[in-house]
């Protein structure tokens, strides 16, 4: 009884093994070839369930999705012989499975190496024909389109691969050039900073000078007007004096002189040497005032 049950189990297992070795599924995202004793008998199998002869036929499946070959950053020279470090990537997918299998044995790394070499050569070519400025700014799209076309001419027939896109991720200066770029940038900034400061000084000077001018003009005008006013005052006063004093100039002179005497001898430090014969002392010695 135990042998019977064993046989049952074994036979079902063998059946399973047979089915599994003859049936195979190709997924939609895969490309597959069938080999019989190593020779291609069926290429580009459609997705779905298929059967093959067990043990003689072998199925090789490859990733049919879009692949990315990330290139190692490499140096290229522009037309003016400037070195640039370029990091790029390639988007490719299998186009013709049988060619792909024949040339690469289905090894995607091998395919990418070959592709990478071609792209590197192409890049070297393209960069070598362009100026640094063109490469960095305007002509990336153009450059890549040309390169893609060139690569596809050979990649299709030789590798069974279609290149969908080639893009430059980074274009950088090598370190020693970077330093000089930084130096230039720094110099540019310094120039700009100096310009701002100088402009500041200029504006400041203009404003201050203007203020000083206004100040001087204000004060001069004020002085002019003030002098004019004083003159007017003086003139008016002179007219008034003249009108009054011309009525009796002699008396005015007399009065004014007396006034001056009293004003000019004001204190004890003024020493007067007097002659007793003067008019003032007329009565000092002689009550009759006889001389």
């Amino acid at each position, binding site marked *: 009884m135990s042998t019977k049950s064993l046989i049952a189990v074994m036979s079902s297992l063998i059946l399973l093994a047979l089915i599994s070795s003859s049936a195979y599924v190709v997924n939609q995202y895969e490309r597959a070839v069938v080999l019989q004793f190593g020779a291609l008998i069926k290429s580009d199998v459609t997705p779905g369930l298929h059967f093959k002869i067990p043990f003689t036929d072998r199925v090789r499946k490859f990733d049919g999705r879009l692949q990315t070959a990330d290139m190692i950053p490499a140096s290229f020279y522009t037309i003016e012989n400037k070195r640039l470090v370029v990091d790029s990537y390639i988007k490719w997918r299998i186009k013709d499975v049988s060619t792909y299998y024949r040339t690469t044995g289905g090894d995607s790394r091998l395919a990418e190496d070959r592709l990478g070499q071609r792209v590197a050569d192409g890049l070297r070519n393209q960069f070598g024909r362009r100026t640094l400025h063109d490469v960095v700014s305007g002509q990336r799209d153009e450059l890549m389109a040309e390169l893609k076309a060139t690569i596809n001419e050979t990649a299709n027939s030789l590798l069974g691969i279609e290149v969908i896109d080639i893009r430059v991720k980074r274009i950088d200066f090598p370190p020693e050039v970077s330093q000089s770029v930084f130096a230039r940038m720094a110099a540019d900034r310094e120039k700009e900073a100096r310009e701002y400061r100088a402009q500041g000084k200029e504006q400041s000077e203009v404003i201050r000078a203007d203020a000083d001018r206004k100040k001087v003009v204000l004060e001069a005008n004020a002085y002019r007007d003030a002098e004019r006013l004083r003159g007017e005052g003086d003139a008016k006063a002179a007219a008034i004096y003249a009108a009054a004093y011309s009525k009796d100039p002699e008396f005015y002179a007399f009065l004014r002189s007396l006034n001056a*005497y009293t004003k000019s001898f004001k204190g004890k430090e003024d020493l007067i*040497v007097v002659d007793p014969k003067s008019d003032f002392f007329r009565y000092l010695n002689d009550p009759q005032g006889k001389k």
Partner: protein
Amino acid sequence: MAWNEPGKDKDPWGGRGGGNDGPPDLDEAFKKLQDKLNGMFGGGSGGGSNASNNGSFGAIFAVIALVAVVLYGFFGIYTVDAKERAVVLRLGVFQETMTEGLHWSAPLLTQVFKVNVTGERQYPSKGLMLTQDESIVELPLTVQWNVADVKSYVLNVADPETSLKHATDSALRHVVGSTELEQVLSEGRAKMAAEVKLRLQTYLDNYQAGIQIINVNIQQAQPPEEVRANFDDVIKAKEDETRLKNEAESYSNGVIPEARGRAQRLLEEAEAYKSEVVSRAEGESARFENLLAEYKRAPEVTRKRLYIDAVESVMTKSSKVMVDVSNNSMLYLPLDKMTRSVPATVLEEAADARPAREIEAKPVVRRESR
């Protein structure tokens, strides 16, 4: 069917006690099952019979098959979250896209790829890059994206996320490479972000990656570390410019009103002088005219009086030396003793010298005492 009773399919081999995970003994298991089945169906001999039963063999197979079917069914159940969509391939061929909920698909025959679609994902990137005028700038950016087409996302591209990253790096550098540094650092950011977004979407559509770019956000561009100080200095210089200008303005605002004030003062003083001079003239002339009127009445007397008054006030205030020179004798006056020979300016200024001088100028001769 009693087979569906819970516990029936839990452990078909009837695990042999605590933690012993040895390989199950088929025969023994069969026997056990057989016994159970027999007991259940009431067929066969009473429990615990050791005799083999050919009739139960089919039943055993049935049980195994059933258990297998239940397990198979159990493994085919999966749930799709609200955030996810599932791409189902049956025998390698795309079948359908499943939305959220509980689903079943045949294990081994189907493949299920679950992808988060509603969640926005972010890819932050940062690095030094060249501008159009061959300067180097550091530009951090964030790409927000989600999966727009699950089928493409799963089936078309080997590594969609890496593809996105590469494409972002490329698009960003392309756009920055065609922009001047000045623009990159100032107002060009929004425009650049829009360009990067457009370009990036174009790349990804070309790859049929099923990715949609929601937003590209470029943060504040930074000059590289090596020259940051110089860039900061430019900002400082702008501030210096403003500061110098403001200082000048404030100087001007101070000086001009002050000058206006001084000008006003000059004018006021002049006006005051004018009024003063005129008023004095008027006063003095009025005084003179009044006096003149009286003088005209008695000229001789008035004249005398005025003269004597004046001389008197002179005489009372000052020191006097009376000298009679009629005898024509030589006279020596020690004037230097009487008045200190000091410069006039000192006389005027040094008021505190006066008492001393008074002491020194002791009258050598008779003095008028008050």
